[in-house]
């Protein structure tokens, strides 16, 4: 069973609809026990790091996610879901789940003509192959909405990057965890293809 983690962080139905469209049956759940024992997990989310962590802890979902990660099941983090999977976020000065070494930083954009948040379609450049990114082609663009960006501690955790004044990490992975800063569920065909690659991924990754 694939579960979409529900922690009061945004609209999960759009993720569920996109999964449904590519044939991945997924249920929305906020039950810690179910999530700890799920076969496949999608961890989406929009909003702020502070309230997200409070909500995760309140329901015991922080421990459930850690348990699932250690059990080796495939996990896909999306946007805020990816961000709180690191150790620390500058947003709300918040300690986060620490599934992946690294932190989340605020965009520091000096170019006044660049709008904040980083919202819209941007090109995603694969810097290291991964099964979840297998169908991406050069020039493919995905939909983003965020004011903070992930910065993995180790460069080998970075699988894709985009540019907004400077390059930043937009896809990070460690073992059975993979996460995207962009929204595959709102990124048209290329996003649906990424979700179908995730649906087929067994969670193994060899460095």
């Amino acid at each position, binding site marked *: 069973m694939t579960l979409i983690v529900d922690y009061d962080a945004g609209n999960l139905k759009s993720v569920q609809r996109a999964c449904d*469209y590519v044939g991945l049956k997924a249920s929305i759940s906020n039950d810690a026990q179910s999530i700890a024992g799920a076969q496949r997990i999608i961890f989406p989310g929009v909003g702020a790091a502070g309230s997200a962590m409070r909500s995760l802890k309140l329901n015991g979902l922080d421990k459930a996610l850690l348990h699932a990660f250690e059990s080796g099941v495939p996990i896909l983090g999306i946007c805020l879901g990816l961000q709180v999977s690191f150790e620390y976020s500058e947003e709300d000065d918040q300690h986060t789940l620490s599934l992946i070494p690294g932190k989340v930083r605020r965009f520091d954009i000096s170019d006044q003509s660049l709008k904040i948040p980083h919202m819209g379609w941007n090109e995603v450049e694969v810097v290291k192959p991964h099964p979840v990114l297998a169908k991406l082609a050069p020039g493919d663009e995905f939909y983003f909405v965020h004011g903070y960006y992930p910065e993995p501690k180790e460069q080998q955790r970075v699988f894709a990057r985009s540019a907004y004044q400077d390059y930043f990490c937009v896809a990070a992975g460690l073992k059975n965890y993979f996460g995207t800063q962009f929204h595959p569920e709102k990124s048209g065909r*290329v996003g649906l293809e990424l979700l179908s690659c995730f649906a087929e991924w067994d969670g193994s990754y060899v460095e």
Partner: protein
Amino acid sequence: MLSKRLIACLDVRDGKLAKSIKFVNTQDIGDPVEKAREYYIDGLDELVFYDITASSDKRSIMLEFVEAVAEQVFIPLSVGGGVRNVADATDLRLAGAEKINVNSAAVLRPPLISECAEAIGSQNVVLSMDIARVAVSDDMPSGYEIVINGGRKPMGVDALAWALEGERLGAGELVVNSIDADGTRDGYEIGLTALISQAVRIPVIASGGAGLPEHLFDVLTRGKADAVLVASMVHYGDYRVSELKSYLHSQGIKMRMSW
């Protein structure tokens, strides 16, 4: 870097696609779900639906309609028209809308913007502004005034001041709709769009007046817009979405070209 966005706007009345000219003489021109799907397949970057249903007891039709679109269109969907409170906004979000447009109700009660931003996130709140050209005066220093109720009622509010206030209250994006240009197909109001886009840090969507591909180019360059809204240009088959994007791309505008 971010691509400029091509957004199609569909006016929906009782679940049907309508097109207005200067906000009057609306006529039904087809099935909006079918149109939405067609534009999505053809590379559209974002969709906006304005609910122009007259009676509020028909709101459930709009929710069903949004849901039908969300099941098969996987780009951001933005919905507006008659959003008066947080409950309206969250209902539409649950039905599948990514972003919520507020317009008249926010002019009448500005805290609506911050309430929606708190409930659904600032980035999902779009402040849509209908703007009329007026004489420059002490009360209207920008020479542009906010109007509501489909362009019929001037509000005595300066458009530039309202844009800045909207940003301060937590709007994540602005739609700058010129009611003078709307439906004319003579081009967007470039000066107005540039004036507002340069004054705020949030993205600005130009709206009203598009008739030729060159108009889109002008407002994305001289008008400093982050996105362009089109309606009749594509609804009547004069131009295809992909054709407009290819044109802008060929003129050096960064557009999403693989879909």
